[in-house]
């Protein structure tokens, strides 16, 4: 009986049994270091951040012609305020989420960005200083954490489903937003016993409209699974347990299964309780494999475990099964350096260049209980597929790609389509002045054919200090954008987005 269950609350309740907040320590040098580095390295512009609650611009200048079939709103999310009071966060993942919307109509493209009014943001705006813990920063004197939502910045993804718009973070609740004004409406509660349970940032919507997702309580080694009907009603939920977990960013679905990859890492409860950040409480389990968890969609309370060689990952492209075999692709890193070092160091202006992830194809033989993998050459991230093929066999994988190496720049210069049948690539290189963000596939609804449609996405034009939005023919990226709209300002570099067709 479950002392452990209450412990889970208190595990998250964090460092301090003290009755009074510890004194806030003096600011460190990161703010000054970043400001100095930015003066010398314009590629850091995307990590400057903003504290403006909204950013808006209408009638954006457009080059080219936007396809008539492409009407709707492209939503993106990402951490946008990197400094709170005199604290500059030590990690890209820490800042409050700001949702960006690009509204495409017959009269053109307009932009609206607005911060998600999380419990954390509201409290910290009132106090004019950091009050809450963060994923990757040790926040001295932070308030006790009564639930993960205490430090939920809602900064990772934004998904429209069943008439709702949900701003997502992987450790806590979804925040509901108004689809037009982007005003925050409140926390999404799927069911009373799921209130405050994490609803992760990479839900998968299958072609029938069913949304699958998961939420993690790594301190309890518990993974909650959600099945949400196309109507928006929770259809089913379950719990599986797996020891030695830490954050799990993404998963994949097939027609029969949910698939997870657990790198050999775990979060150390003791370190977290002593005030270390979540990230700082992680330990790499040398010598251990990467685990594959396979959950049957018809039994959300048990999981089968298989193994791959050690590695690290954030993102899946897609997965499918044909009876006894599951195939999926993911972006594989050798280790967690991207998360533990690269995404931290550039917050103080230090650019660490390491090899980016590689598209890696995995075959899981369920009967034999073995999996094998093969990586494809090329550095890439932010994989997406056509929404019409989620969970079924796909041919085309779309990624941000690094094909030009520039020493003082982290990130991607190109958007690339990988034809997994032929191995051929189709790529548009934005050029050395651009940092390419996630690009997504928007189906042309006049066709059911995979790839028939458009690829849309944003990139930061470092030279102009402006963010551009581009649309491509999904099957002909190398022809360059069909149209491009330019914002009058630079947006903070963000993470993930989705399109809601008009």
């Amino acid at each position, binding site marked *: 009986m479950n002392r452990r*269950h*209450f412990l889970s609350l*208190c595990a998250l309740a964090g*460092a301090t*049994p003290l009755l009074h907040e510890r004194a806030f320590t003096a600011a460190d040098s990161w703010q000054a270091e970043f400001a100095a580095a930015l003066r010398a390295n314009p590629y850091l512009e995307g990590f400057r951040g903003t504290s403006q609650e909204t950013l808006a611009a209408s009638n954006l200048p457009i080059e080219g012609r936007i396809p008539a079939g492409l009407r709707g709103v492209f939503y993106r999310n990402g951490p946008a305020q990197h400094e709170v009071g005199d604290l500059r966060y030590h990690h890209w993942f820490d800042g409050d989420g700001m949702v960006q919307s690009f509204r495409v109509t017959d009269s053109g493209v307009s932009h609206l960005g607005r911060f998600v009014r999380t419990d954390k943001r509201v409290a910290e705006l009132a106090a004019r200083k950091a009050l809450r813990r963060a994923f990757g920063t040790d926040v001295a004197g932070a308030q006790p954490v009564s639930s993960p939502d205490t430090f939920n910045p809602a900064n990772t993804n934004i998904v429209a489903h069943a008439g709702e718009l949900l701003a997502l973070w992987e450790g806590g609740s979804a925040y509901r937003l108004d689809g037009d004004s982007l005003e925050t409406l409140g926390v999404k509660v799927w069911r*009373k*016993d799921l209130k405050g*349970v994490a609803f992760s940032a990479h839900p998968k919507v299958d072609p029938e409209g069913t949304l699958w997702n998961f939420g993690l309580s790594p301190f309890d080694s518990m993974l909650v699974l959600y099945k949400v009907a196309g109507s928006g009603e929770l259809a089913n*939920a379950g719990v599986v347990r797996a020891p030695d977990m830490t954050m799990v960013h993404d998963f994949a679905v097939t027609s029969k299964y949910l698939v997870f990859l657990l790198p050999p890492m775990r979060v150390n*409860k003791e370190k977290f309780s002593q005030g270390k950040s979540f990230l700082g409480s992680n330990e790499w389990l040398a010598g251990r494999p990467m685990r594959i968890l396979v959950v049957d969609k018809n039994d959300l309370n048990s999981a089968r475990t298989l193994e791959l060689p050690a590695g690290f990952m954030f993102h899946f492209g897609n997965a499918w099964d044909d009876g006894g075999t599951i195939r999926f692709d993911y972006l594989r890193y050798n280790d967690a350096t991207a998360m533990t070092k690269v995404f931290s160091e550039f917050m103080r202006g230090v650019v660490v260049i390491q090899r980016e992830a590689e598209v890696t194809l995995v075959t899981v033989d369920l009967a034999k209980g073995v999996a094998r993998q093969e990586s494809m050459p090329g550095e890439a991230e932010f994989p997406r597929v056509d929404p019409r093929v989620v969970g079924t066999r796909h041919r085309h994988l779309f990624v941000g790609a690094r094909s030009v190496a520039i020493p003082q720049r982290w990130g991607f210069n190109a958007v690339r389509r990988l034809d997994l049948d032929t191995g051929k690539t189709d790529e548009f290189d934005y050029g050395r002045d651009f940092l390419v963000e996630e690009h997504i596939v928007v189906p042309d609804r006049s066709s059911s054919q995979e790839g028939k449609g458009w690829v849309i996405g944003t990139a930061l034009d470092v030279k102009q200090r402006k963010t551009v939005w581009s649309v491509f023919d999904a099957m002909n990226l190398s022809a360059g954008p069909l149209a491009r709209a330019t914002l009058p300002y630079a947006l903070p570099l963000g993470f993930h987005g989705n399109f809601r067709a008009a």
Partner: protein
Amino acid sequence: MTKKSTFAIAIQLAAATLFTTAAQAGDLRVEVRGLTAADSGTVNVALADKAEGFLKTFLASQRIAAAPGAVLVVFRDLKSGDYAVTAFLDENGNEKLDTNLFGMPTEKYGFSNDARGSFGPPSFADAKFSVGAGGATVVVNLQ
């Protein structure tokens, strides 16, 4: 799916009625704050007087209808000594602190001293305060 936390069980077990003692008695006023107009249900308030069995057994408990702002309960004629108080908002009248699948409370709760535990519920020592012959007043903030 609906496993109860130790805390929830403890509150359920806190069936003891008002306990009166002899000499050196004072009244303890417990002001429970943190309720809004959106909150409805019953506030359960439980009193403990020792570290042993804390959150498993209680000296006394009381229930009072929720009201915006603050509600007040009084434990009368307590002998001088150390005490701790915990309270929660029972929204659905099932007389337990409901929890989510991860075991985290889904109803508001709090302890005297605003005590919060580290990898466990707060201890009696974290939440304790003294009641003398003249009685005492404490605040429990529900969160």
